[in-house]
């Protein structure tokens, strides 16, 4: 596998594209590894990549029950931002955003990162006050943030309905210009390719059915493709974190809910940014293919079915038409649901557990995608060194006992 470059594209173009090789190997599981990462999504592959690159652990495997990027990585709305309220959250999401900014170059893979700006709308005075507070908090943490009035919003996103006559008028918004969207598959493929080049085994169609322990410490995993010995197991299985942790008897403060999104028929470029509204409950951006990608809140009930309820779609459509009357006759092409594991404080868990060698990265709730590189970076550090670094420290499991919660419901942009 060579580097992708203008030269290689021209060379392969002249050779009839016969010289490309697979971007990563398809190895069978070895009998033992130094570490096994369960879950081949963005976070898991990023963890593997940073473990290999920064911590010198070359003998590691990522095991994935389906195909890489086939779970929540393929089911999100690809929105990137870091405008969280609290210092702990700002630290990890901003860390991620800074990594996103250079990721295409670092991985030698075009992740189609587009810093088109994210608007978070305010519809009443209380929300406007909270958003202004968040802008100040962001600036103190070095996160770019602006507060816009209706006129400036209209200039930034002309198709947004800023009339004062609608049921929930748009009275202001925060803008993070460095926020935006990227291409979810490309991120997974780019991380997989880069990790593979560093010697990481990416094993697909390999489901972990059991985690083997001895005297309170991990000794290996049992999979649908045989047993693998290892002293470190890192779970990065969003949606199913409770199921994996249950294999070693670890209880977590997590409930799994469906979160759904839908996509419209493709349009010419019309929506220049990402628009999110916490109050009327919709978020919308336009993909490079031209489809509007529209998300909503979680379903109230817990479930593992990867389906959403119709009443959420109805709610979401009502909100989108109020904010964007121009979309009223748009046809929706497809809808899907993913399972998000939600923590009581709407913040993730990056933690070791009472079982030696068993690490958990999960509970990202409704906003895991934007954190992918930062999450992998911090989690790799924890798995390699067995102690959380400064960024991961506020997100350990201890916070639920000490009460030192990172209550980010307001900045999560989705009602829980």
């Amino acid at each position, binding site marked *: 596998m060579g580097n992708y470059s203008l030269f290689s594209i021209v060379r392969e173009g002249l050779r009839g594209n016969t010289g490309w090789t697979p971007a990563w190997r398809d190895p069978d599981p070895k009998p033992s590894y130094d570490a096994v990462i369960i879950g081949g999504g963005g976070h898991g592959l990023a963890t593997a990549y940073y473990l290999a690159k920064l911590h010198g652990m070359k003998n590691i495997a990522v095991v994935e*029950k*389906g*195909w890489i990027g*086939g*779970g929540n990585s393929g089911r999100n709305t690809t929105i990137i931002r870091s405008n969280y309220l609290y210092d702990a959250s700002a630290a990890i999401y901003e860390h991620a955003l800074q990594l996103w900014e250079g990721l295409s170059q670092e991985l030698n893979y075009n992740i189609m990162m587009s810093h088109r700006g994210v608007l978070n709308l305010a519809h009443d005075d209380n929300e406007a006050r909270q958003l202004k507070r968040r802008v100040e908090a962001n600036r103190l943490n070095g996160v770019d943030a602006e507060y816009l009035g209706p006129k400036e919003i209209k200039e930034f996103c002309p198709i947004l309905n800023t009339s004062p006559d609608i049921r929930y008028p748009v009275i202001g918004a925060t803008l993070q210009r460095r926020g935006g969207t990227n291409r979810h598959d490309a991120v997974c493929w780019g991380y997989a390719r880069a990790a593979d080049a560093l010697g990481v085994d990416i094993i697909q*169609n390999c*489901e972990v*059915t059991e985690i083997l322990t001895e005297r309170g410490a991990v000794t290996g995993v049992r999979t*649908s493709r045989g047993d693998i010995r290892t002293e470190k197991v890192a779970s990065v299985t969003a949606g*199913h974190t*409770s*199921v994996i942790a249950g294999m070693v008897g670890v*209880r*977590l*403060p*997590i*409930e*799994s809910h469906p979160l759904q999104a839908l996509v419209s028929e493709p349009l010419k470029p019309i929506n220049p940014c990402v628009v999110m509204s916490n109050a009327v409950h919709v978020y919308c951006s336009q993909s490079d293919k031209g489809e509007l990608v529209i998300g909503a809140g979680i379903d*109230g*009930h*817990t*479930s*593992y*079915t*990867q*389906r959403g*309820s*119709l*009443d959420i779609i109805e709610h979401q459509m009502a909100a989108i038409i109020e904010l964007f009357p121009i979309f009223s006759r748009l046809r929706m092409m497809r809808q899907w649901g993913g*399972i998000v*594991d939600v923590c*009581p404080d709407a913040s993730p868990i990056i933690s070791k557990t009472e079982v030696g060698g068993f690490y958990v990265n999960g509970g990202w709730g409704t906003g895991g995608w934007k954190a992918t590189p930062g999450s992998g970076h911090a989690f790799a550090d924890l798995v390699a060194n067995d102690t959380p670094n400064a960024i991961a420290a506020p997100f350990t499991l201890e916070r*639920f*006992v*000490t*009460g030192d919660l990172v209550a980010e419901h307001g900045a999560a942009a989705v009602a829980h």
Partner: protein
Amino acid sequence: MFVITCPYCGERDQSEFAHAGEAHISRPTESETMTDAEWAEFLFMRDNTKGIHAERWIHAAGCRRFFNALRNTATDRFLAFYKIGEKPPEIDDVVPATPCGETVGSGNDAVKVERPPEAGR
């Protein structure tokens, strides 16, 4: 979308109801002697079962009463509805599953092969 049977009002659309979390978690009576870890267990830790799950619902737009339900969270099939204070009925939900035991109807269906139904809960 669910059709939910309120034990007081009968069958209604899901939009009349709100989910109220895991059932049968009782508030501790001797809270003054509890450790922080015990509080964390009561407040935050949940089974989050994949399979037959006992949960509370409230008929928010109806009689406004709480009741319990058994639902298979891997298939979203409701198995029973019962009043608060009653014991959950013994129910075996026979679900086809994959060779490694994961139930069909969730997750990655492409890797799933049905095996003959045998196991219950």
